[in-house]
């Protein structure tokens, strides 16, 4: 089906609720993952709130879709870059984020961390190395 594997990066920059961007981005990622490309996600600015643990949407009448991020590994999306400065600016650490893992089929389903903490400078290099970048 595919001639050449391309590197796709989805930038998530907005808070999860209040707009449809975060959920739409996630849906696009899940659909796009069917095309056997090298897909990774980055969370920066308010986008880091998308993967904060303990989300509760009971008061805002929106579906809490945060459990869906845990399914990304099943879709072979195993690289989730999180920008360190964005966390720090919001008083967050990596411990405030969901423990997102993927299972390596080649190593008897060993669980591995999906989250890769990067500095702003490192993230710039990651972006530079992509074929296609989508910003949400």
């Amino acid at each position: 089906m595919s001639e050449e594997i391309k590197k796709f990066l989805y930038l998530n920059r907005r808070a999860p609720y209040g707009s449809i961007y975060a959920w739409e981005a996630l849906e696009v990622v899940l659909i796009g993952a069917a095309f056997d490309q090298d897909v990774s996600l980055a969370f920066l600015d308010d986008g880091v709130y998308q993967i904060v643990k303990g989300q509760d949407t009971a008061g805002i009448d929106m579906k809490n879709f945060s459990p869906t991020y845990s399914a990304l590994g099943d879709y072979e999306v195993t690289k989730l870059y999180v920008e360190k400065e964005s966390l720090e600016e919001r008083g967050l650490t990596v411990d405030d984020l969901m423990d997102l893992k993927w299972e390596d089929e080649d190593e008897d389903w060993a669980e591995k961390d999906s989250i890769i903490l990067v500095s702003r400078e490192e993230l710039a290099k990651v972006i530079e190395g992509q074929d296609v970048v989508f910003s949400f």
Partner: protein
Amino acid sequence: MAIEVNGKTLETDEEGYLVNLNDWVPEVAEIMAKEDGLELTPEHWDIINFLREYYEEYQIAPAVRVLTKAVGKKLGKEKGNSKYLYALFPYGPGKQACRFAGLPKPTGCI
């Protein structure tokens, strides 16, 4: 559209998927299967239950590729292939089984 289950009318969308997930009872699957000319076996129920558990955990219906792999891991390699799943659900394991399970159409199913 709608289906009649236990004397109650349950709303479905234009493709026959339940509009309200919470309306689901096992009879929904039985009735939908009968309309498709299928008799549900324990093997069908393995997949339907698996899909409901997956949705419960991740809030999405898995794509067929993901379903196939996950079934292989959970129920054994001989079941984790599309031939086996299509034999059970001839209209597509994603689409048809999700409909029976009361879930929305899988994300990525066009």
